[in-house]
């Protein structure tokens, strides 16, 4: 069995990568000119020195970094200068459930609708339906969320007045719909194009011809032989898809005024709140690296060829 060394090797690299990212982003924020306290108002030097002492910014970088790592190990991401009465960990704990729900819902919608569109287009290839769906997908990939989201709001929130324009309200489904759709649209477009391509490639593969030659009904050929192979590229696209949803959530949460992690991140960035920005970057970067690790394993398990190689 060579599987265990493979998994261990990948896990060690992932852990090192996370450590490098923490170090690099920490150094970047500390070595940069300017700090959170030289914003609009000129602070009295004494007040500024006091503030810097409170936040530990008067210590040497090495000491600051050691403290930061130590706190991080206990799940403490330090204080936020934008929200002085809250810690970064509290802010993230507040925002994460909302971001997570919206993000996971968008991923589920994107994968299921994207697969359905891709399969439909591939089965009707070179028809008007195929051309229409793929034309829409090209447009969907090109349209940024900050254009589609306001238009969705205009149509469904204002003209038709079916759904709330913004806000989280009581967190009921009505408040989810527009953000989730806006977040999912570019991913639906990408996944449907990917699925169509993989379906077409698989449909002309020898093993599918064999299955047809055996006289299997078309439905069974698709479900048993084509789909499992055609789904593989979608699995390996999950990493980029999650990255896209996380990036999109920053914009979507801003547009729909949702109190998620992305909104705190933007507030932190506008106010040069290094603790908050650093905390969110570390959280999302680690999550993505771990996810990519899982996708690698899943791929190795799903694809017989990759299984043979490891």
């Amino acid at each position, binding site marked *: 069995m060579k599987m265990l060394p493979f998994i261990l090797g990948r896990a060690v690299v992932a852990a090192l990568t996370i450590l490098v990212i923490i170090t690099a982003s920490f150094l970047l924020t500390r070595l940069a000119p300017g700090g959170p306290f030289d914003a609009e108002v000129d602070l009295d030097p004494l007040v500024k020195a006091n503030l810097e002492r409170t936040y530990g910014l008067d210590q040497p970088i090495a000491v600051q970094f050691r403290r930061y790592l130590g706190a991080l190990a206990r799940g403490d991401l330090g204080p936020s200068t934008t929200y002085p009465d809250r810690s970064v960990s509290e802010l993230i704990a507040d925002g994460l459930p909302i971001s997570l729900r919206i993000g996971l819902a968008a991923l589920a919608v994107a994968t299921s609708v994207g697969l359905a569109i891709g399969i439909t287009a591939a089965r009707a290839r070179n028809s008007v339906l195929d051309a229409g769906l793929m034309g829409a997908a090209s447009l969907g990939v090109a349209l940024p969320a900050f254009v589609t989201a306001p238009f969705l709001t205009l149509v469904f929130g204002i003209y038709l007045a079916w759904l709330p324009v913004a806000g989280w309200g009581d967190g009921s489904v009505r408040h989810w719909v527009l953000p989730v759709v806006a977040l999912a649209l570019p991913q639906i477009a990408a996944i449907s194009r990917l699925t169509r391509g993989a379906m077409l490639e698989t449909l002309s593969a020898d093993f599918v011809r064999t299955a047809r030659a055996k006289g299997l009904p078309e439905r069974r050929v698709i479900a048993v032989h084509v789909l499992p192979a055609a789904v593989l590229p979608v699995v390996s696209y999950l990493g980029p898809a999650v990255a896209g949803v996380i*990036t999109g959530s*920053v914009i979507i949460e801003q547009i729909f005024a949702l109190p998620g992690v992305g909104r705190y991140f933007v507030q932190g960035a506008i106010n040069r709140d290094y603790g908050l920005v650093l905390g969110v970057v570390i959280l999302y970067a680690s999550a993505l690296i771990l996810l990519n690790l899982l996708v690698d394993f899943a791929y190795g398990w799903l694809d017989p060829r990759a299984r043979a190689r490891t």
Partner: protein
Amino acid sequence: MAGSASPGPLARALARFLANRQAVAGLLCLLVIAVLSILVPVVWPHGIEEASLDRIAQPPSFADFHWFGTDANGRDLFVRTFYGGRISLAVGLVATVIALVIGVLWGATAGYLGGAVDLVMMRIVDVLYALPLLFLIIVLVTVFGNNIILIFAAIGAVEWLTMARIVRGQTIALRNREFLESARAIDLPNQRILARYIIPNAVGPVIVYATLLVPINIIIESALSFLGLGVQEPLTSWGLLINQGAAQIDSAPWLLGFPAILLVLTMLSFNFVGDGLRDALDPGARG
């Protein structure tokens, strides 16, 4: 030389490009947008900062040269949209050049040196690839302040990864090709080999990808400006105009509509031109 009598590779590529209707339409569209972005702020009867209180948030009309209407401060949207186009196009192009330089140097070094250096350099690319790049750009902008030059640099400094991969692949593929061995065998000087064989073969994919990178960078700039982290008033860009338009979408939808249409047109045009260039410059990649 015999090659000079028949049409050269460039002429053939040009002919292939011109035969592609989508690509030509995209190129024409880009030219029109670029020319308007350069000229309109100079010749238009309204200035970008000229506000008039009696014309607040007027819908588009041909009277008085408010073709795209006016914004909440009574400023003419037509001139502001094309002024924003200047900034958005400039950011897209300059950030792409920066990404091009970093990516070509990184990829060529990794591909040419090979071995452990290649492994480490490309592993770094893999790691950065897995990260949400907009976050890195926002960190850079947060740390170094959002002056417009730094926005160029921050986007370029993050968006070179695919370029590095492409150039590395090209370099490795070219290194051991037979026609290069033949060229060396007939004792062509290195400069001539580079100029006549390596650069023409590597430059195609690089140009194609650079064309496709411009709209990506324009989108990133727009997203940053939309979030309030990019271009700031009194400067403007498509992202900032879209942000201001989105805030008044119920009362003045044209404020969102016109900048958004120009942004999307520009993106689609760049994509069409990029696809056309790929078909024209890289015959091997044609399906």
